[in-house]
């Protein structure tokens, strides 16, 4: 062999180990189960949902692991992750507060509710409170227009909400957080 002795062999096995270590078990199981099926790359969005559900957000290491294990170019994966507003690339707080700014809620004063939340938490949309408990986002429509104006915290919908009710609502979640953290 005329090639020099400095060339290492394929680096994939070592890389693969690292990527697998980055993702939760059931995400790995999901990817493994569908590998090789026709159009398995179409499960990218479902996979990203699973990762975000588990880990709270999609960090660069997670995205690379998904890209490599699903054999989808990383640029495509990040292109998809940044296109959809549901995916969060920054770590977020324990509770995600989603203020609905859809038509019905807007017409019923959602902006004031949003402003009150921002004042109480000291953050803007897209940011997380300093104690890491709350992240604030806005959304266009939660689909519960009869209860406008509406705020979603996690999966729970709260409405109709007035700015005056905001402090008590936040308090209840703070209490819940304290309970959960005490259990751990």
């Amino acid at each position, binding site marked *: 062999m005329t090639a020099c002795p400095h060339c290492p062999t394929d680096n994939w096995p070592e890389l693969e180990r690292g990527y697998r270590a980055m993702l939760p078990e059931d995400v790995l199981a999901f990817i493994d189960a569908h590998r090789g099926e026709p159009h398995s790359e179409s499960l990218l969005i479902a996979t990203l949902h699973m990762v975000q559900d588990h880990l709270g957000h999609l960090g660069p290491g997670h995205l690379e692991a998904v890209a490599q294990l699903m054999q989808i170019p990383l640029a495509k994966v990040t292109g*998809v992750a940044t296109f959809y507003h549901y995916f969060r690339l920054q770590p977020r707080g324990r509770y995600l507060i989603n203020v609905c700014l859809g*038509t*019905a*809620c807007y017409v019923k004063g959602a902006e004031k509710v949003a402003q009150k939340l921002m004042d109480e938490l000291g953050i803007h949309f897209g940011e997380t409170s300093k104690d890491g408990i709350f992240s604030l986002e806005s959304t266009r*429509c939660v689909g519960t227009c*009869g209860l406008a104006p509406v705020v979603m915290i996690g999966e*729970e919908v*709260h409405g109709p909400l007035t700015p005056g009710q905001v402090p008590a609502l936040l308090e209840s979640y703070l209490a819940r957080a304290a309970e959960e953290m005490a259990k751990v």
Partner: protein
Amino acid sequence: MPQPVHDFYQAMADRVGRTLAARDAEHQIVVQVGSATCEHAAGSQAVADELVRHIRASGRKDILLHRTGCTGRCSREPILGVRLPGRLPVKYERVNRDLVHRIFTEHIQGGIPVAQHVLDHEAGPLPERELLFCEGSRCHGSGPGLRERFAAMLAARGVSRGSVRIGAASCFGACGLASGGPATYVLARPEKVLYRVTGEEDLTAILDGHLIGGQVVERLRAQEEPIALAFMERYGDVAFFNRQSRVALRNAGVVDPESLDEYVDMDGFKALADVLERRDPDWVIGELAKARLRGRGGGGYSTAAKWTLARRQADATRFIICNGDEGDPGAFMDRSMLESDPFNIVEGMIIGGFAIGAQKGFFYIRAEYPLAIRRIQQALDTCRAHGLLGRNIMDSGWDFDLEIRLGAGAFVCGEETALIRSIEGERGQPRVRPPYPTDRGLWGHPTVINNVETFANISAILRYSGDWYARLGTEKSGGTKVFALAGKVRHTGLVEVPLGTPLARVVNDIGGGVTGGRQLKAIQTGGPAGGFIPASMQNMEVDFEPLQKAGSIMGSGGMIVLSEDDCMVDIAKFYIAFSQDESCGKCTPCREGTTRLLEILERITQGKGELSDLDKLERLARLCQRTSLCGLGRAAPNPVLSSLKHFRGEFLAHIVDRHCPAKKCVALIHYEINPEKCVGCTICARNCPVACIAGARKEAHVIDQAACVKCGNCFDVCKFAAVDRV
């Protein structure tokens, strides 16, 4: 000759019949609680839990807690329904845990309803009986005035209004089922007897035999079961409901969404059994053509034509997709249907898959609808377990399966080609059309995409016939449409009415009119792709073409009521901001154009507009309409063009006079304290975030305009209406 499908269905129906009969025999009393997103948000879980505790504590075995889906009467949730044997069903509004206790003890155990908490209790005390006359605009029955004459008859016989109430329902959906000439249907509750009345003699018989004599007049009992019967049985006394025609929403609020048995009991999967027995896709499509069913997602394209296009393709691999992306802000019809009647949508899709020759179908549901996703998943699993999905469906030998794919927060994925790209795992950016999805869609194969509501109508059309469905609607469009009524209207919620219903009827008769006694200014339809119908045109018929001619669109069914307190420039800006935020960015006119439109509107609402801005708005709007790549871009300027057309004066006021007539645009209003009304209570000063209100106790206060940030807190908190918004 063997009939495997028929036998399969029969066996299933028999089993269900037995199960439910046993359950009903055991449980005489049914308490109904809604279980969908709105209900949960309002606290229905806690109500249900409280009820369970009471039932357990009482030791009674004859009370059934029945979970249903969403009726669409969201502003009054949690709604709780109580059915005692032989009594009219009673619904309570805004129930909480304390009220559960009262309802349980006073009504369920004691037999006396808690009158002041009954839904729409201002309608009066509960009678013992109620007769609902079907007075749909489509079927004129056996002549007008029948109901009034009956009322006169009752009065003449001295039957008190307290014991028998007469009501009108917009439509049971029975039209066309009648054989033997025109007739009016009358529903007698609580016995749930449907009478078929052809004239005053029949009414006399009912009065004598049933109301006074206490015996059902069997010979007048209708043989057929109209589609909305079950719904009207439970909710027919409420004006908001009985003026609707529930076809797509027929089971919402009636069945437990998680129960296959209850769905089958409502003739669920009978249509599918019929379809598979006939084995004739052309018949299916033929009925849809007769029905004049048009896409309910907003496109209004003939469903039969679309399915035919797919069927004619040479490619044998085909897909059918349910578009559950419902991104219009203000629209929640699809969510409600998916959460409240999932088996119906599933059945519609299976039928569709058969009709077009597909092997696989997808539900594309937005991730913001977790309950809808769970309910559909549960429905799919249940169907598979019962031989209704997957291999050898209903013993027919035909295979077909369904899968859920999630959206992830992109309104543009409601567009067909973008939706396909999203399922393919790509950025949801639309593709140039042609080719159309029915030619080359998902992974290059012929694909049919329909809206949730379109699928919700399929089994009904096949059960009751395409002709019946066509008759419900107009010349060009058959059937009903579900609208999500919201905004400045008294009763917000889901309203399903026949196409061709006057807009004013929806807003005033069903919606209860504008809140606070304010003036109606406009009705916005079609979401961000739609336009405004000014109050002067409120009597127009709701249908695809009329709305288009008026400068709006049907859209998916969002209907926002706007009053004199809404600024049309501000609302136009709101919609453009939405479209701009949701623009996928692929094509130049939409990506750049919506941004520039927004900038211009922002300038105008900030009082920095110029007259040339109006020309620029129109020019940009036409550019987007003509040259954008997809429907989102083409329709994004509609609200702007529509509000310019009907409310140009408001734009001119903002630009020339620097004045917002609706007093909405913050930069163009200011707050002043009326010294004659101010009593000096200081509450405004204490609530001012920038402390710009000066004044001593008991003295008229003054706002420092230079420091004021126009948050409006003082306006909100003043109890003496002393703060004017100018």
